[in-house]
C-alpha cells in the first residue's frame, strides 16, 4: 500500500510511455483510452458489493483477492489508485446504481466494482471496470473464487490487455539465487515476492539465471564441478542439460530473443571474451577480441545488437556492438566502474550498475549513451533485470543489511523489497508466461 504514495510524482514522466503504448493498441482495445488518454487512469476500487446475504468472513476472504488485484493495478503504472472513503461502505451507490458524481468528486475516472454472490458451494466474484465518463462497464469478468493470488494476477493482466492492448506483468515470475550457507540455489517467486519455489538443490554455487524467451528454460552458471559451467534447466521436463563446459570461464549466459542462440563469456582462448553459441548446431562464434575482460552480454530486443562490459579502457565500461561483433561503440564515460548492462524490452533504455562514491548503484541511460540517470541511492545495488513490459526493474540490494530482491519502476520510484530471506540476489524477471 505504501506504493500509492510514491505514485503521484511518477506520472509526469510517464506520459511518453503511454503515448507510445496506446498508439500501438489493437483494435479490440477500449478506444477512448487509446486516443485521448495519455496518463494513468484514476481508478477507485470500491468496497465489495455483496449480492444477497453473504457471511462477513467470506467477504473478508474475497477482499484479500481484491487487495492483490488492487496492488497489481497500482504497480502496473497504468492506473493511479485512489482510496474510497473507509467510513461508508455504501458510498457512491444507490440501490446498486453508481452515483457518478460522488466518485468524480474523488478525482476518479473509473471504478473497479467487485461484486460477490454465493451459491451453495461457490463464491462468484464479478470484477467490473466502470467508466464514469460514459456511464457503463468497459470490462467485466466473473470468476469462481479459488482464493489463489494467481487468480487476481490473471484478472489484472486481462484488465490491462482489454484497456490498453498491452501485456501486463502481474502473472510473471522472478527467478533468482537464494543463499543457503556456502551455497546458492535457484529459486522462483511470483513477481510480487509470493509463492517461493525452490528450483535446484545442487549443493553448490549457482549464479546468473537467464530465461529462455519462451519462459520454458533457465540457463545459469553452476559450480557443480568446482568451476564455472553453464547449464540449462528445462522447467517442464525438469531436466538439467550442460550447455558449455569448456576450459576456463563459462559465464554470463544470455539467450537471444529468438531463443536459437546464447551469448556467453568464455576464456577458452586465454582471456574472457564474448562468444555466440548456436544451440542447434553447437557452433561457436567469437565476437570480441581484446586483451581485456569482456563479459556480461545483453541482447537488444530485436536481436541485432549486444551490450556488454569491457575493461579495455582500464576500468569496466559499457560497450555496444552488432551481433556479429562489428561496429563497436563505448557507451559510458561517467565514473570508473560500469557493469551488468541490461537492455529494456521496450528497446529505449539500458540499465546497468555503476560505482558511485564507493557504492554500487543501479543507473539507466538511453541506448545512445546519453540521458544517464541514477536510480538507487541506498547501500549497494546490483543485478538489474527488466520486467518484460520494460516498465519496472528487479535488482538486489543490501540496504537493509542483507542482500534481498527489490523492485522499482523504470525511473527509480516505488522501490520495495519483495524478499526477506537469508540472502537473495541475481533476480531474472521472466518473459510474459503462457497462462496455465
Amino acid at each position, binding site marked *: 500500500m505504501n506504493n500509492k504514495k510514491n505514485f503521484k510524482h511518477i506520472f509526469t514522466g510517464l506520459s511518453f510511455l503511454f503515448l507510445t503504448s496506446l498508439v500501438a493498441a489493437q483494435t479490440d482495445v477500449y478506444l477512448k483510452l487509446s486516443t485521448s488518454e495519455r496518463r494513468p487512469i484514476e481508478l477507485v476500487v470500491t468496497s465489495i458489493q455483496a449480492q444477497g446475504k453473504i457471511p462477513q468472513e467470506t467477504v473478508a476472504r474475497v477482499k484479500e483477492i481484491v487487495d492483490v488485484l488492487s496492488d497489481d493495478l497500482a504497480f502496473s503504472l497504468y492506473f493511479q489508485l485512489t482510496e474510497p472513503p473507509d467510513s461508508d461502505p455504501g458510498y457512491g451507490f444507490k440501490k446498486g446504481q453508481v452515483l457518478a458524481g460522488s466518485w468524480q468528486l474523488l478525482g476518479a475516472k473509473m471504478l473497479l466494482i467487485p461484486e460477490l454472490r454465493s451459491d451453495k458451494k461457490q463464491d462468484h466474484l464479478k470484477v467490473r471496470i466502470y467508466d464514469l465518463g460514459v456511464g457503463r462497464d468497459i470490462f467485466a469478468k466473473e470468476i469462481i473464487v479459488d482464493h489463489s493470488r494467481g487468480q487476481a494476477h490473471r484478472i489484472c493482466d486481462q484488465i490491462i490487455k482489454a484497456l490498453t492492448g498491452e501485456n501486463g506483468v502481474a502473472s510473471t515470475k522472478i527467478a533468482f539465487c537464494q543463499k543457503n550457507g*556456502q551455497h*546458492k540455489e535457484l529459486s522462483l517467486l511470483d513477481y510480487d515476492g509470493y509463492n517461493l519455489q525452490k528450483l535446484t538443490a545442487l549443493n553448490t*554455487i549457482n*549464479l*546468473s539465471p537467464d530465461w529462455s524467451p519462451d519462459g520454458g528454460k533457465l540457463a545459469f*552458471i553452476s*559450480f557443480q564441478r*568446482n*568451476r*564455472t559451467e553453464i547449464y540449462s534447466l528445462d522447467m517442464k521436463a525438469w531436466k538439467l542439460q550442460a550447455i558449455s563446459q569448456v576450459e*576456463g*570461464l563459462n*559465464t*554470463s549466459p544470455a539467450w537471444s530473443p529468438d531463443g536459437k542462440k546464447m551469448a556467453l*563469456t568464455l*576464456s577458452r582462448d*586465454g*582471456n*574472457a571474451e564474448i562468444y555466440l553459441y548456436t544451440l542447434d548446431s553447437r557452433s561457436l562464434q567469437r565476437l570480441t577480441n581484446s586483451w581485456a*575482460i*569482456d*563479459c*556480461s552480454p545483453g541482447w537488444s530486443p530485436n536481436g541485432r545488437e549486444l551490450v556488454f*562490459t569491457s*575493461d579495455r579502457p582500464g*576500468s*569496466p565500461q559499457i560497450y555496444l556492438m552488432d551481433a556479429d561483433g562489428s561496429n563497436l561503440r563505448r557507451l559510458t564515460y561517467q565514473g570508473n*566502474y560500469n*557493469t*551488468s548492462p541490461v537492455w529494456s524490452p521496450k528497446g529505449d533504455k539500458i540499465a546497468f*550498475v555503476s*560505482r558511485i562514491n564507493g557504492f*554500487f548503484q543501479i543507473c539507466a541511460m538511453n541506448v545512445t549513451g546519453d540521458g544517464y540517470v541514477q536510480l538507487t541511492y541506498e547501500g*549497494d545495488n*546490483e*543485478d538489474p533485470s527488466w520486467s518484460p513490459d520494460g516498465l519496472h526493474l528487479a535488482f538486489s540490494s543490501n540496504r537493509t543489511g542483507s542482500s534481498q530482491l527489490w523492485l522499482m519502476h523504470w525511473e527509480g520510484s516505488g522501490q520495495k523489497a519483495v524478499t526477506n530471506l537469508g540472502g537473495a*540476489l*541475481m533476480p531474472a524477471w521472466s518473459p510474459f508466461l503462457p497462462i496455465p
Partner: protein
Amino acid sequence: MKRNINLISGILLISLVLAGCAKKQATKQEEIVKPELTAEQPVTPPAEEKKPEVKIDFSTVYFGFDSYSIEETSVSLLTEAAKLLRSYPQVAVRLEGHCDERGTTEYNLALGEKRSVAVRDYLVNLGVERSRLATVSFGKEKPADLGHNEISWAKNRRVEFVVEKK
C-alpha cells in the same frame, strides 16, 4: 630414553640412505633429525620417515581493487613458488582466483580468472610448465575473510595455490 635413542638412530640411518640417493633433499633431512636435541618432544615413529614428507607451502598472492597485475610485493613470493615447483616436478597446483565482495558477480568471475591467469603466466615465465598450473575463478563467491572493510577486502583479492598432485 634408551628406546628413544634407538628410534633416533633408526631415523638417522634412514635419512643417510635418503641423503645418498637424493642430494638436494639432504638439508631437509638434517632438519627432520633435529628432535634429538630436545628430549621432551615426542619422537615420530620411523615408519613415517621412510618417505620424506614434501611439505610445500605456497604463499597467497594479493591484488589491488579491480586489478589483475602482479604487484612488486608479490615478486619474491612468486619467485620462491617457482623455485619450489621446479624442485618438485611431481607437484601440480590449481591457482584459485578470488575477488572482494564489491563489484558485480559476473565481472568478478572474469576478474578472478584474470588474476589466476596472471599468476600462472608469471610462473610460466619463471620456467614452470604450464601443464602443471590449472586456473579457476570463484569471483566473489568464496571470501577468505567475511568482514566488510578494506582490511577484509584486501585479504579477499587473492590467488590461492591448491596442491593437486604429489
